[in-house]
């Protein structure tokens, strides 16, 4: 596109010398006096799309006099999504066939708007000027006599028509998209809380190796003052101590002999006996004998 920009000077000249047909051509405003700009009308329609809504009123035609508040024009400018949109507007407003645009007329009208913007020193996006240049170029090419027979020469408007059509369909697609029922406007997500206490976490898997490695590090840390103490009892004794306690739980007095499983043999009896001694030593259980040679009972120490 950049190769077309040099033409923009030429365009400005054309526009400056041309007649402001674009505005006068609009029958709705022709002949009307000072403030016909705010035409009350119904909701926006495709054919008479307002430039803008100013103070609640649709602005259907471009103001003719230059004393209109610049705000209105800024809104007007914001109303168009770019030069293609403005061109489409001009074409639709006059019920022209997009496939056969009277390029000279449209160019003049387009330039009117552009000049107006420039006069008001509104910040005009560069794309508007690029389009102005393009229009001028097409216009000049249309004026040139075309060799009728050569078919490779395309209509100078072809490219513009394609772009206009392409833009138009996505303009429509955007409208369609906007009309789709969507969240936050037409539908709302719903949410119902779950009664408390039902969330659960899946407990992590643990490998025994992790436990042992943790113990190893702990031992390395605690070795200085605990190692001999930890090591002197065998694990079976420890296990037996726990089993004795479990046996005694909630039982009150348990006959001493019930703590021994004879089928375990001598080793088993010894381990149980050591476990009982350990538990007595650690003030966890106590032995009770009501009189000499009476059966010995064991019970958990309850601390009164």
């Amino acid at each position, binding site marked *: *596109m950049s*190769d*077309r920009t040099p033409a923009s000077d030429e365009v400005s000249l054309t526009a400056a010398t041309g007649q402001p047909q674009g505005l006068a051509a609009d029958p709705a405003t022709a002949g009307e006096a000072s403030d016909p700009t705010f035409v009350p009308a119904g909701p926006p329609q495709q054919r008479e799309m307002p430039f803008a809504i100013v103070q609640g009123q649709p602005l259907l035609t471009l103001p003719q006099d230059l004393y209109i508040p610049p705000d209105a024009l800024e809104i007007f400018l914001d109303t168009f*999504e*770019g*030069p*293609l*949109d403005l061109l489409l507007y001009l074409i639709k407003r006059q019920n022209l066939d*997009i*496939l*056969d645009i009277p390029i000279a007329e449209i160019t003049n009208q387009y330039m009117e708007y552009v000049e107006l913007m420039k006069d008001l020193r509104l910040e005009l*996006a560069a*794309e508007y000027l690029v*389009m102005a240049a393009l229009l001028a170029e097409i216009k000049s090419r249309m004026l040139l006599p075309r060799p009728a027979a050569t078919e490779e020469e*395309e*209509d100078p*408007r*072809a*490219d*513009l*028509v*394609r*772009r206009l*059509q*392409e*833009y*138009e*369909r*996505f*303009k*429509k*697609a*955007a*409208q*369609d*998209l*906007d009309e*789709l*029922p*969507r*969240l*936050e*406007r*037409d*539908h*709302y*997500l*719903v*949410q*119902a*809380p*779950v009664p408390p206490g039902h969330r659960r976490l899946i407990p992590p898997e643990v490998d025994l190796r992790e436990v042992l490695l943790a113990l190893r590090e702990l031992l390395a840390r605690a070795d200085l003052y605990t190692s001999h103490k930890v090591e002197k009892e065998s694990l079976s004794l420890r296990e037996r101590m726990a089993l004795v306690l479990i046996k005694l739980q909630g039982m009150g007095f348990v006959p001493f002999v019930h703590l021994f499983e004879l089928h375990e043999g001598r080793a088993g009896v010894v381990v149980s006996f050591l476990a009982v001694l350990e538990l007595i030593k650690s003030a966890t259980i106590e032995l009770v004998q009501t009189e000499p040679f009476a059966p010995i009972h064991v019970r958990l120490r309850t601390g009164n």
Partner: protein
Amino acid sequence: MSERLSLKNIVEGALLAAGAPLTLETLASLFAEEEAALPPPTREDLTAALTALEADYQDRGIELAQVAGGYRIQVRKACAPWVARLWDEKPPRYSRALLETLALIAYRQPITRGEIEEIRGVAVSTNIVKTLLEREWVRVVGHRDVPGRPALYATTRKFLDYFGLKSLNELPTLAEIRSPDFLGDDLPLEEPDPAASGSSAGDLSASGPASPPPVRHTGGMPGSNP
């Protein structure tokens, strides 16, 4: 309470608790194997439960909807005007510029910002792209292998969910382009059928961001090479 009814109740509770679309798979996963009392429902069971729910909601304030992310329960449109008053803010409105950009990404994905600007005839503001990315309606799915390596944008599942679509195929059909006499018939004006582009775009979003989509030319771009 029959077993069928129970399943429906659980499905209803889950959909309402989730507050987001749930797939059939997620719904099925709620029924662990060990529940001997209630054998894990089949796909058909779940679909039947959903159909029953849909029927139940016939004259309620809510409805069951199927979107790209699965099934969800939503407030019925008829109730929206009142429900909207729950919040002080008005529902967000989106500018034409944003909607046009979004439409171009939706119908022409994957597409670069430059290509969007080409069709719209104006620059796409950074804010628009930022908003679309922030809403997670679009995402960058790759880069076109041309100078500058411009980002390629595509729509997301969130976009479909937001607009209540199951897939891109459900987008409104693009208007046709008329071929003017003076342009002849041989011009490459035919758009790829939206269904076709939709399904290929669906594939894209499925393939994930790790693998950028195959870069294809996004169809007749008028005036891209003056």
